[in-house]
Each structure stands twice: as structure tokens, then as C-alpha cells.
């Protein structure tokens, strides 16, 4: 099977909603979340998708 997408990281302000799997980055506020997501996006060559107001996932689209 060829992997087409992978969740590389999760960025959140609400740690209760996340468990296991990809690395999780816990932030204090929206501003910090935006800045971390932006950095991760650039470093990992992935796209930051907003799942909800509190959760971003960084996804690599192969």
C-alpha cells in the first residue's frame, strides 16, 4: 500500500481532546498555536489543517 497522507503533528490549546499517535504540541492560546503551526508547516513540508478552533493537524500530502 502506498501512503498518501500522514498526520505529522497535532497542535492544540485543549490537550484533553488529543491522545496518542502523532506528536502533540500544547499551546496556551490561539496566537501561540498559529505561530507553532506555521513553523511546523514550514519545517515538515505539510499543511496545517484546522479540525476545530482548538486543534490544528499538520498533514503531509505525498
Amino acid at each position, binding site marked *: 500500500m502506498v501512503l498518501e497522507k500522514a498526520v505529522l503533528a497535532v497542535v492544540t490549546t485543549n490537550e484533553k481532546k488529543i491522545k496518542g499517535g502523532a506528536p502533540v504540541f500544547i499551546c496556551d492560546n490561539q496566537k501561540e498555536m498559529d505561530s507553532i*503551526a506555521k513553523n511546523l508547516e514550514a519545517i515538515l513540508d505539510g499543511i496545517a489543517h484546522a479540525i476545530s478552533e482548538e486543534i*490544528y493537524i499538520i498533514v503531509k500530502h505525498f
Partner: protein
Amino acid sequence: MNEYTLPIFYGVFVGVLARLFMLKTDYRQYPTYLHGKIIHIALGFIAAGLGTIAVPAIMEKEFTAITFLTLAASQFREVRNMERNTLSELDQYELVPRGSTYIEGIAIAFESRNYLVIFTSLFVTLAYLIFGFWMALVMTVVCFIISKVLMSGGTLKDIVDIQYVKPHFDGAGLYVDDIYIMNIGIPEKRELVLKYGMGFILTPKSFDARTTIANIGQRQAILHDVSTALGVNRDAGEPSLVPLAKRDLEDGRVGVFVLPQKHDLDIAIRVISNVPTLENAIRMPTESKANRKGEKKRWF
């Protein structure tokens, strides 16, 4: 000099001329380089030679000469492979790739144009030998017209209506009209996307067209052509700035989202209109027997 010399020279000359006529560098940027052109002119020369020689050979009752044409066929199939391999290799380094369907279309065009050269040379030499120079000249014009007709396929404007729509966001979702394109999380990136992005809605004119533009290769060809003609605001390591084309499942419309460097609406619409309908993407569901009502033949 014998009776065949002039017809042979004329046949080869017209064949090479036909190849040059069919070798155009346009916005598709291929073949761009002098060396690429030389390869195709040289192969055109070989094709012209093969087509021309076949006629005097048959007139001299050397029927085995026809087997050389099979050699030509395998030779030009190799041309298709060469083009496919080169373009596929290069495609990995394109900011907006052409896609395999488009590449296959280009490769087929290169192969078939060599066959057109063979036929041109063959018929022109035949006309020269049987009817003389003036008839050969008439045949040359006829062959050029046929080549012109055969090499120009259809374009998108024949099968879709194109309309500009400004892209917008609903939450994190990017939309062109009501067609969902992608999810972009970071607000800063959303601003960039709205600043640079342009959206187009392609409405298919028929049921056949609906299936054709649904083809992913066809959609990629649209994105590639627009990005080539108008530039693209994108770089490696910026995956969120990506041109995409998505389909409306309800009615088969396609929403095209592009990030051109030159925001010229007229040119963009003209470029999309002139995107070739790829041979490999064309589908004709209405030609299927099951779809044709009133044509049912029942034998029992």
C-alpha cells in the same frame, strides 16, 4: 540521376517540411531547446526517407522493401517512449506537474506526427512519379491541410463554459463558488490565498463533457497550463499554496483554484479555453449502447 532522383528529393524535402510545420514551440514549452528540435527534425528526415523510398521500391517490384515500414513503426514507438520518459523525469521537478495523462498525450502526438510525415512523403512521391511535378505540388498542399486538421485536437472551450468566481473561506474551508477546495488552518495563509488566488467554475456543456473534465489528468493539465502561462505563487516547502481543481458531485461542475503571479482575468480565461481536451481523458458515455434509447434490438 535517374527517373527517381527528383521525386525522391522532392518527397524527402516535403516530408521534412511537414515535420517542421508540425513542430511548434508554444506555451506548452516543449520542445524548448535547439537540441530537442534537432532530434525531431532528424527523425522527421528518416521518416520522410522511409515514406519516399517505399514508392520507387514497389515500382521496381522490390516488394520486400515494405518490411522497412515495420521497422519504422517500431522506431517511432521508441520516440513515444523517449518523450514519455523524458517528460516524466522532468515532471517531478515542476512546481505544478503536467501529470501522466498530459505527458502520454504529448508522447502520442510526437509518434503520430512521424507517421503523418511518412504518409505525406509517400503520397507526394507517388503523385510525382505517376502524374508529374504539378500534381505532386497539389498533393503537398492537400497533405499539409490534412496534417493540420489531424494534429489539432479539441480544446476545453468546446465542451465547457468558463466563469470567474472569487474564492472565499467558510471557516477554514476554501471554496470556489460552492465547491470545496481545501482546508487551510493558519489565518495568515488564508490571507495569502485570498490575495493571490483566482477561482474558475467550469460548467460542462454535455454529459460526455462532464465525464471528460472529471478526469484527474485533464484537471491537472488545466492547472499546469494556467500556471505556465500566468506564473504560479508557489515554492517547494509551501504546500499550502497549491493550485487545485475539485469537482461538484451533484452536477459535475469543476472548481479550479489557481495562484497566478499575473492577475489577468482575460488571459486566464483564454488559457483555460485553449487547454487541449486530452485524448486519454475523453469519454463518451452517450455512445454506449445502454445509453441509447430506442435502439434496442431484440432477437427473441
